[in-house]
């Protein structure tokens, strides 16, 4: 009786063992990495906005403080998107004819707010509060990156839960003195770990409770 398979099939049989392992490994790595890809998380992606607002120009160039526009960051969960009147405090006097700013003037004229596209958008089951982070010494740039260097707003971090937890499990590596929270030029000192631990103690950050489900998911 003739052989059922040619002898070259032996090679296929052996290769298929490796191929199955590769397939399983490939699926596993997709599962691992899918949410960590910039394409999925949106890190470094500039969204379309009604007006190409430049944080770099306003913060680094003009020297505005974060709180000039994001007024409620210290007192409320929401940092606050400025009303168009805030823009018009200056832009009723300068660049009054600039075509780029026409949507701003239109919004002011018609009393219809600008429809900004949210860049840092957490899922609705996450109850993030700006005020508690700011008052416990977590600076703007720790989460939002070097906003003062961004001509167009982009996410600097994934905002994945593992990223939140990387700080909630050990805040000492990121915490800074309260008076430096809005300082865009702050960088961690060489002995951050030591200083951070002291600040965690001084500010009464109860690390053991920071990873309770209800801290963020109520």
């Amino acid at each position, binding site marked *: 009786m003739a052989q*059922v398979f040619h002898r070259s099939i*032996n090679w296929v049989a052996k290769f298929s063992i490796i191929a199955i392992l590769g397939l399983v490994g490939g699926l596993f790595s997709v*599962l*691992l990495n899918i949410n960590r890809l910039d394409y999925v998380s949106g890190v470094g992606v500039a969204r379309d906005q009604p007006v190409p607002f430049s944080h770099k120009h306003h913060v680094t160039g003009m020297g505005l403080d974060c709180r000039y526009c994001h007024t409620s960051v210290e007192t409320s969960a929401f940092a606050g998107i400025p009303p168009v009147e805030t823009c018009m405090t200056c832009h009723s006097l300068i660049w009054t004819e600039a075509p780029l700013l026409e949507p701003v003037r239109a919004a002011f004229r018609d009393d219809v707010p600008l429809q900004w596209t949210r860049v840092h958008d957490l899922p609705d089951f996450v109850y993030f509060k700006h005020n508690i982070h700011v008052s416990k010494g977590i600076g703007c740039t720790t989460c939002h990156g070097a906003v003062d260097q961004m001509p167009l707003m982009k996410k600097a971090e994934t905002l994945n*839960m*593992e*990223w939140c*937890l990387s700080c909630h499990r050990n805040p000492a590596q990121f915490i800074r003195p309260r008076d430096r929270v809005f300082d865009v030029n702050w960088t961690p000192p060489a002995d951050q770990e030591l200083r951070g631990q002291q600040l965690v103690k001084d500010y009464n950050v109860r690390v053991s409770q920071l990873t309770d489900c209800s801290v963020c998911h109520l």
Partner: protein
Amino acid sequence: MSEAPKRQPYTAPAPVLGPGQTSYTSITEKISSIVLTPHTPWQWFAVVAVGLALMGMLQVAIVWLLYTGTGVWGLNVPVGWGFAIINFVWWIGIGHAGTLISAVLLLFRQKWRTSINRSAEGMTIFAVMCAGMFPILHTGRPWLAAYWLFPYPNSMGIWPQFRSPLIWDVFAVSTYLTVSLLFWLLGLVPDFATFRDRARNVVTQRIFGMLSMGWRGSAIHWERYEMASLMLAGLSTPLVLSVHSVVSFDFAVSIIPGWHTTIFPPYFVAGAIYAGFAMVLTLMIPLRGLYGLHDFITPRHLDNMGKVMLVAGLIVGYGYFMEQFIGWYSASVYENFMLQNRMFGPYGDSYWALLTCNIFVPQLLWFKRIRNNIYTLFGICMFINVGMWLERFIIVVGSLHRDYMPSSWDMYSGTMWDWMLYIGTIGLFLFLFFMFVRGWPLIAIHEIRTLLPVGNKKH
């Protein structure tokens, strides 16, 4: 056998194989003729048609469940666990007989197991597949269940709760499925090779050629085969005990009266073996008639399985009795109330039905004439199949519906969708099992050959 003459009158046990099977060729002929033939009995088509119809219903139930959410089920507060866990435990339990027959009886050198082990192992795998659907579907969003069930370094930076028996369940059941599947496929390899060599057309030859993975039947192949199968039997044996013990922890680790009992692990394992043997017989008795396997599955097999059921049933009965006794002996008002409520509460009739199905009726197995009559034996198995489902219903719903807080008491019943899902998995099970029967060797040819006098000389 040496002490046998002292006990009068002694009759030798019936042979494992019937008188019709006398040579290697007749065995191989008989078993391969079921698969390697264009002829399919109409009864097969009938069962597969029923299976397919029920699977259609299963699909509708699943799609509607995923589209709408688990609200379509009858769950409420306080009965947060319903049909899903009842059916899960029922199916997992059924699987246990296959592992017991294939692993434990192999290690104990019970030769009669060889005619039924292949199909019982198949039953195990299909039952575990049906069981596995329920925990996955009860999440409501199975596509997210990956991180709820399996520990992997996910982008949330969190792990499942390792202190929860539910995650132990995931490991217990997935290990069980893996080991059972490997054991089954390993045992099939020599028989696939037989089919490959006997196949008359190229397609069949190629399919079985691939499945037999180059088996040539050389001495080295057989030596490795025997070693691998012993090792897998060794791995499977603790699984017979561990899987259903872990399943019982789902209940026993909690603090609900009626669940919080130390007897649960052994009593669940006995119940699993009980249910499993009942299901093996439920499948074997019709199959034996359909394919004329009377020489392979002889009265001795049915008799032995009847005895195993009787023993397992008595252990289960002991479990019921101990639950009642400890409930009374604990002098805890909650335990006492649970017992009262179980017997005379709103689900009391289910409890008495359960005792009838699982304890009273199977006592008929003490009688040899009843045990050896296929019709009565089949009837008793059906009682046990129903009884074991009722047992889980009583445990789950009977304990939850009246918990510590009377203000939250509520009644529970499965909705149409609950029933469609449950009956649908029975269709899936029937379909898978009959596809296996038609396409794969349903009796281990190479093992059963060793039961012949001619193959038995080496011992």
